[in-house]
C-alpha cells in the first residue's frame, strides 16, 4: 500500500477549553439495575474503544465562579461562544493569527458539547472547580521551569514541551484528559490484566490486577507504575513512580494518582481521577470525565518517527542566528 499518514506536530496553541459544542448529548440515565457484562474471566467488562472530547474546561472559568452547574440557556450560550472562539477555520484575525490557525478544524476533535450534567468544570473537588494552590516549593519549581523553557525555547530539544519531543502528552496521561485530537482510548482485559491504550501517542499501560506492590521506587517512568484492583464494578488504578519532569499541572515525582473507571451504561464509562501530591499541591483534587463508546479503532500514532517539527524549529533558530 502506498498511503502514508504524515504526522504533524501541533505547536503549542493555547486553547483554554478543548471540549465542543452545544449541549452535550444527553446521557440517557442507565436503569438502576444495569450492570456491566462480565469478561470470560469474570471482570466487569470495560472493553472497547472510548473517546473523551468535551467542551467543558478542566477548571471553572472565572465567569462561572460559584456556579457549579449551568442552566440550559447558560450552557447553550457558552457552547456557542466557545465554538466561535476556538474555530480555527475563521479567516478574520490577520496574518499571524491566520498562520496559527493553519492547524485547522480538519484536525480537531474537541467534541461539541459540555458534559451532560452541565457542570461548569471537569474538576469536581475542590468545590470551587479549581486546581488547588501549589505549595511554595512547587510554585518556585514551576516558575523556574517556565522561565528556563522560555529562555531556552529553541536552544535544543529540552526547550520544547514533552509533547513536542514526542515523549509524553499530558492529555494521554495518566491521568487522561480531553485533548485537541486523538482522544480515543482502547481498553483490553485479559486474565489478571487491564490494558489502557491511548492513541496519543501509542501509549499502552499494561496494568496488573494481582494486588502486588508497586515496582521498586528506583524504577521511574513517564507513565508511572500502575496497579489495579476492582472495587465492586469500578476499576481502580493506582499509579506512583513518576519521573519528576512529568509535571502534570505542577505535580512532581511524588504524585500519587488514583483513577476510577465505572461503566455506567453500555455507552459510557465515568472516569474519575484524584491527584494527591502533598509536595506539589496544598490539597488533593479530583476531576470527572465521561468516556463515550465509539465504533472507531485506535490507529498508530508514530509521533517521534514523524517529528520533522523538532528539526525544523531548531534548524530555523540556527538559521535566524546566522542572519543576525
Amino acid at each position, binding site marked *: 500500500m502506498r498511503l502514508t499518514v504524515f504526522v504533524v506536530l501541533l505547536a503549542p496553541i493555547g486553547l483554554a477549553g478543548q471540549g465542543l459544542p452545544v449541549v452535550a448529548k444527553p446521557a440517557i440515565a442507565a436503569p438502576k439495575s444495569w450492570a456491566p457484562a462480565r469478561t470470560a474471566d469474570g471482570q466487569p467488562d470495560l472493553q472497547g474503544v472510548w473517546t473523551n472530547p468535551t467542551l467543558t474546561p478542566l477548571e471553572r472559568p472565572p465567569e462561572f465562579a460559584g456556579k457549579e452547574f449551568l442552566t440550559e440557556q447558560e450552557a447553550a450560550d457558552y457552547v456557542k461562544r466557545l465554538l466561535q472562539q476556538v474555530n480555527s477555520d475563521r479567516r478574520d484575525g490577520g496574518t499571524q493569527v491566520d498562520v496559527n490557525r493553519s492547524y485547522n478544524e480538519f484536525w480537531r476533535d474537541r467534541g461539541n458539547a459540555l458534559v451532560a450534567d452541565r457542570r461548569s468544570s471537569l474538576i469536581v473537588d475542590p468545590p470551587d472547580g479549581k486546581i488547588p494552590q501549589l505549595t511554595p516549593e512547587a510554585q518556585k519549581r514551576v516558575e523556574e521551569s517556565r522561565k528556563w523553557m522560555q529562555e531556552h525555547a529553541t536552544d*535544543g530539544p*529540552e526547550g520544547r514541551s514533552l509533547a513536542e519531543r*514526542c515523549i509524553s502528552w499530558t492529555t494521554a496521561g495518566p491521568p487522561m484528559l480531553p485533548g485537541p485530537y486523538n482522544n480515543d482510548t482502547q481498553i483490553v482485559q485479559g486474565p489478571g490484566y487491564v490494558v489502557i491504550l491511548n492513541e496519543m501517542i*501509542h501509549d*499502552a499501560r499494561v496494568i496488573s490486577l494481582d494486588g502486588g506492590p508497586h515496582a521498586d521506587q528506583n524504577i521511574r517512568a513517564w507513565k508511572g507504575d500502575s496497579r489495579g484492583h476492582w472495587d465492586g464494578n469500578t476499576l481502580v488504578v493506582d499509579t506512583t513512580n513518576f519521573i519528576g519532569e512529568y509535571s502534570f499541572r505542577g505535580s512532581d515525582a511524588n504524585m500519587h494518582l488514583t483513577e476510577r473507571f465505572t461503566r455506567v451504561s453500555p455507552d459510557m464509562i465515568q472516569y474519575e481521577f484524584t491527584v494527591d501530591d502533598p509536595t506539589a499541591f496544598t490539597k488533593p483534587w479530583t476531576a470527572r470525565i465521561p468516556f463515550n463508546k465509539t465504533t472507531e479503532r485506535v490507529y498508530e500514532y508514530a509521533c*517521534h*518517527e514523524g517529528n520533522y517539527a523538532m528539526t525544523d524549529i531548531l534548524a530555523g533558530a540556527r538559521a535566524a542566528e546566522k542572519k543576525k
Partner: protein
Amino acid sequence: MPKQFPSSLLNAIAAVLFVAAMPAVAQNQPYKAPRTADGKPNLNGIWQAMNTANWDLEGHSAQAGQVVALGATGAEPPGIGVVEGGEIPYLPAAAQKKKENYANRLKLDPEVKCYLPGVPRATYMPYPFQIVQTGKVILISYEYDGAVRTIYMDNPGPAPVDSWMGWSAGHWDGDTLVVDVTGFNDTSWFDRAGDFHSDMLHVVERYTPVSAGVLNYEATIEDPQVFSRPWKISMPLYKHLEKNAQLLEFKCVEFVEELLYGHLRKQPGK
C-alpha cells in the same frame, strides 16, 4: 503350531509393554496448551526471544562493534541464524541495497533512532513483550519504545493506512494463533544487519504453544519487490516466570535526542 502361551501371561506381558510404552506415546501426542476461560490456547504472558536474530537473522560470527568507545559491550554476539534454508532470497538489486544498508547500519538502522520496530522484528528484539488475549482482540505490548499492536480476531478488513507496526488480522488454526499482517510502510528493518523490505511486505506469523512456557514462533515473509520468493524464520519464545515480571518503560525517544538533534543545538557564544 507353537505352544500357546497362557493368556494370563500374555496379559501380564501386554500390561508391562503398555506401561513401558506410555511415556513414548505421551511424547508423540501434541502438547495441549492450557486454555483461557473461553477455551482457546492461553498465550497470555510476558515473552521474550533468546537469540541474536535482532543482530542478524542469518547465521553470523561475533565481531567488533561500530562504536569504539563501547568496547566489548558494543560487540556483536554470534548467532546460528533463524532463516529457514540459511539465506534470505533477495532479488539482485535488493541484495545490493542490503549490502549498502549493512555498510551504513549505524546511520540507517531505524532502531538506532528509536523508531518503531515493525513486524516481525518487534518479536525478537532483546526486550520482553506481553500478550493480552481476549476473544475479539489480542493485544501485544512491546517494552521497546512502547510499541503496541492490536490483533483483530474478527476480520478487520484491509489495512486502512500504512504504518510501522502494520495491520494485524488473527485467527486460530488448531492451537496455533495465525496473524496476517499487511499495511506496512517501507521504513522498518528486520535486524541490525540491514535486512529490509518494501511497503509490499506481507507477514504471516504463527504462534504455537509447544510446552509449558514455550511458544514456537514462525514468520513467513513475502515481498515481491525485494525477495525472489517467500521465506521463513522460526524461533522459540520463552515465558518470563519471575513472580514480579512486568513490562517496564523503555521510551528511547529521549535517549536519541542528542543523536538526532545535537547538531542543531545552539552553540555557546552564538
